[in-house]
């Protein structure tokens, strides 16, 4: 196991260096100079322009800039945002809990609905409900998040008035940040003393639409994966044996079939969790969700180099860590891989 861990960690280093180099170069290849963007129509004066460029360290050759960046990054300093002038690390961790909270809710939503739907479709193969479920999941999978989010807002917030349009909390509540996840922070005794369960319910209500918008694609993937995985297991001889022994239908499905179908499903869920950030970028923009997706979009518009580089690197680390954990769980679940 130790050797396995060591190997995995050693593999990480070139990956991270590669990602940092790629993000560094790619954002500089995109047309648009952050200094010119900051100065706008007033950017005509070459002296002011050069002075600003120098202040931001952007006047040096690209290779030198990268060397400086990496030297600092190794020591944990990812630079300061060109726009807010604050450390990138701090900016990231201020926003990360919001994305994490939404990501977890979206995954729970996808799993809680996706798995039962998949199992149901598998056990009722080629029936009307199966076609309906799988057809719907195909639609869900191909739905553009941006459009889907707006449709949800128009139906549930504007026409039915059930959910808020956007944001994380009703603007009148004040919840001090402890973990950054509002569902937890709003249960702080001080908050409850002041506003009761109001902030918690408000946070929950604000989560509903973004969770659905962000969880729809993972839900479709989980449902389809569960269906095919369970179907495969159902054909296995030991299922026939269990049925022949007179076991109840529920028990055969959940105890024998589902448990064995679980390995590919867990893998898919792990991968989905890693890729949730792509969904976050769109979902957070529509629902004004103050997480890292929205932060990255704004930074790309402003050509805020340090934020883009740092943000991409942090996300890469996150995805790699999740995949790494999935690998470990996998080796435990499947002794052949150990």
């Amino acid at each position: 196991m130790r050797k396995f861990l060591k190997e995995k960690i050693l593999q990480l280093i070139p990956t991270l260096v590669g990602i940092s180099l790629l993000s560094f170069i790619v954002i500089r290849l995109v047309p648009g100079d952050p200094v010119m963007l900051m100065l706008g129509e007033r950017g005509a004066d070459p002296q002011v322009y050069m002075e600003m460029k120098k202040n931001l360290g952007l006047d040096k050759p690209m290779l030198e800039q990268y060397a400086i960046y990496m030297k600092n990054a190794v020591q944990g300093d990812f630079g300061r945002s060109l726009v807010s002038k604050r450390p990138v690390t701090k900016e990231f961790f201020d926003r990360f809990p919001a994305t994490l909270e939404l990501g977890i809710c979206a995954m729970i939503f996808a799993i809680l609905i996706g798995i039962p739907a998949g199992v149901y479709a598998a056990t009722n193969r080629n029936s009307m409900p199966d076609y309906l479920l799988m057809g719907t999941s195909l639609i869900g999978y191909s739905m553009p998040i941006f459009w889907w989010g707006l449709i949800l807002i128009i139906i549930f917030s504007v026409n039915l008035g059930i959910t808020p349009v956007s944001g994380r909390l009703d603007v009148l509540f004040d919840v001090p940040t402890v973990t950054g996840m509002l569902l937890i922070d709003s249960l702080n005794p001080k908050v409850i003393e002041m506003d009761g369960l109001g902030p918690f319910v408000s946070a929950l209500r604000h989560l509903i639409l973004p969770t659905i918008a962000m969880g729809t694609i993972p839900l479709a993937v989980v449902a389809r994966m569960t269906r095919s995985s369970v179907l495969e297991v159902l054909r296995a001889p030991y299922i026939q044996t269990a049925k022949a022994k007179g076991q109840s239908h529920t028990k055969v499905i959940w105890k024998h079939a589902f448990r064995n179908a679980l390995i590919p499903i867990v893998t898919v869920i792990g991968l989905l969790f890693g890729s949730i950030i792509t969904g976050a970028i769109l979902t957070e923009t529509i629902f004004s969700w103050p997480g890292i997706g929205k932060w990255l979009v704004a930074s790309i518009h402003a050509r805020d180099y340090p934020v883009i580089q740092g943000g991409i690197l942090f996300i890469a680390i996150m995805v790699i860590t999740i995949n790494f954990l999935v690998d470990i769980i996998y080796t435990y679940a499947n002794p052949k891989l150990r």
Partner: protein
Amino acid sequence: MILSTQNYMETLSMKHLSLLLSAFALLVLASCSGSKSNKSTFVYCSEGSPTAFNPQVTTDGTSNNASAHTVYNRLVDFKTGTTEIYPSLAESFDVSADKLTYTFKLRKGVKFHTTKYFTPTRELNADDVLFSFNRMFDKNSEYHMISGGTYEYFSGMGMGELIESIKKINDYEVAITLKKPEAPFLANMAMSFMSVLSKEYADNLSKEGKKENLDTFPIGTGPYIFQVYQKDNVIKFTTNKEYFGEKPKVERLVFSITPDASVRFQKLKAGECHLVIEPSPSDLESIKHESSLKLMSGAGLNVGYLAMNTTKKPFDNLLVRKAVSMTLNKPSYIDAIYLGHASVAKNPLPPTIWSYNDDIKDYEYNVEAAKEMLAKAGYPNGFETTLWTLPVSRPYNPNGKKMGELMQADLAKVGIKVKLVSFDWPTYLKKSSQGEHEMLQLGWSGDNGDPDNFLHILLGCQSVEAGSNYARWCNSDFDKLVNDAKRITDVSERTKLYRQAQVIFKDQAPWVPIAHSTVFRAMAKNVKGYVIDPLGGDIFDKIELE
């Protein structure tokens, strides 16, 4: 099939559990709506996050709205909804006979905000004014390098070169001496970047080693007190009960940060905000038809134009410039590009600015006359040239490429064959400020409501060198008028000069002024007291909810 008791129990408990859970969830959601309604809270849906809470170090409108008119005041301010100047933190001001020294007499009894992070022990005095201005002016100020040390507006408006000295006469008098007479100076003083900050607060932060907090946790004298900012999410203010001016009529002001224009519109419809910044043009019609909403519009302080490089052939020829002016069918651009939300421009100044010369007649759209004029200029069959189209969307020109295509078609009617060219925005600015273009689309949004801010910066001889005169047009008569107007403080005298300057501009036609865009704000019906600010900000000091 008969279920065994155990299985039955299993199924039952599963069913029960899920039923119970969903019932609980529904109950919680239904019993408690999770929202507080409060008539004295005004919610403004803004479009982005501020970069800082100090207008000295920011240039974007978002940051300006969040701090300049909520938290801070200046010695002189613009009257809300106009570009007229009135004494604000200064009770009065005098200008010396040589027009070089401006003496500001400060208002007494002005209190800085008391917040969780600062409790002032004294009232506003000359030290605060000196501290605020010296931070930008004096490179040795201990705060000069905090937040990067660049003060784009201060240097962009030429304040650094203009000011000779800033002196304290006594606790309530400050004298600013200029190197040369400059009438627009007073308008500059009313701009957001000249806000007055608390020196006492800055000293405290310096002792605590938290100097950068000066720009993120603001302390000012304005109508609203900063309470909290949750990044990318919300900014909250409470009313300043000790405000020296007319006290705000709402108790809390909240900025709900909503970057997407269509989501902002949905929030407005759902009653989650009272006012939204810049609705998208496609939503304007439906806003008009919503019974719970109202739409306000005003002329923007901007101009979109087509500049002809007067140092290049054939645009050095006045007849050619006039012919181009007569060929472009401007009203058709207003319909196609601005969807009707703009007015045709004939002067380089927008009509909301004082000294706008309405007596001037625009060149008539006349293809035949233009052809004759071209023939007279020696181009009976037209000529070939390039037209640079604006690569970004701006209020003064939302779609440069499309406008370029319309211009191309118009100019083809008189035989001018135009090739459309564009670059990315930074390259566009750089190349055009060096005069590499022949014809170019650009525009300008005013900073301080002074005509000098348009006529001198965009058309003065000095600006050819500086790069902001994109027609590279230097006319000595025009230049003399705008330079003379800088040295006089009397507004009626200046008005005369600027009106004459506009006549020369029209006659010489270095640009074809295209349009002044219209600014829109959508709000709930119960919002009262909101006025559109010609300088483009959103100001909430007079707002109330019915």
